[in-house]
């Protein structure tokens, strides 16, 4: 009788954990508290299964999948590179959604497989199969949506040596299709409630909600992907809560709706940081803007020329982007800043775009790893007014986050807040080529007269620049 007390402890640990995770100093403790909560929850469930609802007769059915799952999760989490963490979060999220959907499906399938199993009374049947239906819808939707989000974050996938780019497509009429699909899954859920023995309903539900998940994510551009992952995360919480209704478990209910609600708020907070609205992210039709053809060219500069421009600079703002993350050049960049400060007593700051590097906080993480002082990392809104008085803006592997095309009314970037590097006295861009960024739009900044391009890998180029600077 006292066994479910463990669920209360776990729920309290989850609440404290999430609370502490939202403050910088207490975040590591928050994560430990929630993982402790999870351990307590699993322990309690096992004890309840053994002593409460009858002994466990087949431990293999429990220990083997658990061990395999834990191993998969641990290996993925530890092996992943720091640049691919957003993909990983999206992938795990898809796993969670799939788990909820599978639990619901197993529950439904029981009645399909065993015709001798009596159906519950009408009221129970409605709630149980209604909840199972919704849990399955949200779960499958989260799975396929998250997998597509992973693909988009990766940029594509290589199958037998052939590269397939992740598609982004979504004319305005697709929104109508989405609404119709939602109506369809609701109808299917009603059908499932009415006739749980028919195997067609769970299968059709799986198919239609999988398609829905893909269609939801398909029109959404790369820069908005963190918002989508956060929203799907919130949905997978709700799916878990519905599962709680089916198996009558208070912890599933509480933890699921907790994540559902806080995940939703986090989604809104993230949208605000990017000056977007959630409806805008989800329903704005994607105008086919297949990567613009580059018609202009620009002659690259060499590090010595750049070192000359930097001579005597009073203020330099470094704008890091995904390129810095990929080449892991944060340490060389830090050396560069120190060199400048030492030589010319230059004031160096880092301009952090909220979505630079494809996940919020990515640049902070990398620069912190290189021991860049916290005060030097300035968020976009605070640093933008400083560009007109800045001698050199050094863009390292960033593109869309400083593309003035975002100031225009239309186009894939329209409305995204950007870092105003074009207002600096000189702009230096370290980049592998003139190629377009994630949004597929050519960047006017590259072609300005005051802009110097350093073509090459960020780490190599910054190393050469440091050398040139030291010798000048």
């Amino acid at each position, binding site marked *: 009788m006292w066994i479910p007390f463990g669920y209360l402890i776990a729920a309290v640990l989850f609440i404290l954990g999430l609370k502490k995770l939202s403050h910088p100093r207490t975040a590591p403790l928050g*994560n430990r508290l929630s993982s402790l909560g*999870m351990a307590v929850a699993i322990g309690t469930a096992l004890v309840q299964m053994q002593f409460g609802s009858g002994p466990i007769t087949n431990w293999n059915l429990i220990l083997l999948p658990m061990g395999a799952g834990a191993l998969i*999760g*641990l290996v993925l989490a530890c092996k992943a590179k720091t640049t691919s963490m957003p993909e990983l979060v999206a992938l795990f999220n898809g796993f969670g959604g799939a788990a909820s959907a599978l639990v619901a499906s197993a529950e439904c399938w*029981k009645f399909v497989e065993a015709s001798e199993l009596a159906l519950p009374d009408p009221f129970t049947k409605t709630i149980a199969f209604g909840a199972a239906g919704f849990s399955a819808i949200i779960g499958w939707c989260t799975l396929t949506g998250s997998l597509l989000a992973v693909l988009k974050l990766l940029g594509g996938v290589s199958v037998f040596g052939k590269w397939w780019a992740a598609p982004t497509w979504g004319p305005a009429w697709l929104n109508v299709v989405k609404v119709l699909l939602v109506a369809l899954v609701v109808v299917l859920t009603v059908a499932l409630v009415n006739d749980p023995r028919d195997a067609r309903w769970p299968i059709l539900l799986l198919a239609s909600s999988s398609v829905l998940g893909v269609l939801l994510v398909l029109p959404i551009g790369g820069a908005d992907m963190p918002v989508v992952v956060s929203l799907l995360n919130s949905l997978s919480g709700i799916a878990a809560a519905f599962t709680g209704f089916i198996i009558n478990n208070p912890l599933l209910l509480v933890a699921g709706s907790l994540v559902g609600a806080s995940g939703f708020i*986090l989604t809104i907070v993230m949208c605000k940081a990017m000056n977007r609205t959630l409806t805008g992210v989800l329903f704005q039709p994607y105008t086919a803007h297949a990567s613009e053809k580059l018609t202009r060219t620009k002659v690259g500069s060499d590090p010595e020329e750049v070192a000359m421009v930097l001579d005597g600079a009073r203020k330099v703002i470094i704008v890091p982007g995904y390129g810095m993350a990929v080449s892991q050049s944060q340490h060389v960049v830090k050396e560069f800043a120190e060199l400048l400060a030492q030589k010319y007593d230059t004031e160096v700051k880092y301009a952090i775009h909220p979505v630079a590097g494809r996940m919020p906080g990515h640049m902070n993480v990398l620069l*912190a790893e290189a021991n860049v002082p916290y005060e030097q990392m300035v968020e976009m809104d605070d640093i933008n007014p400083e560009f007109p008085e800045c001698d050199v803006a050094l863009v390292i592997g960033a593109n869309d986050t400083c593309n003035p095309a975002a100031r225009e009314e239309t186009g894939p970037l329209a409305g995204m807040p950007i870092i105003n590097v074009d207002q600096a006295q000189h702009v230096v861009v370290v980049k592998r080529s003139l190629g377009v960024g994630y949004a597929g739009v050519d960047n006017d900044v590259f072609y300005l007269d005051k802009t110097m391009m350093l073509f090459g890998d960020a780490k190599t180029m910054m190393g050469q620049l440091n050398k040139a600077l030291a010798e000048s």
Partner: protein
Amino acid sequence: MIDPSLFLLNLTLFVLAIFLGVELINKVPATLHTPLMSGANAVSGISVIGALFGTQIVMQDGGRSVASLLAGLALMLAMANVVGGFAVTHRMLNMFKKKS
């Protein structure tokens, strides 16, 4: 399975927890958006409990082939979500720590 007498109680818990979740998160610095998302994602792996009970129902019903396969698969995926989610959050937060 579901117990009608518990349904209202469950609904109460569900609604109250939603209010609590909304209150819990208000101001989050941009740097913590990703770790918080990742941590919340690990907590949503709580469906591992659902998967555990799912396997038991299957056992009691005599281990029906498809249903037990589904339950086992659910357990594996949920566990990957939980362990991987907490581990990756831990890694992210560790990268911040070096600062001090």
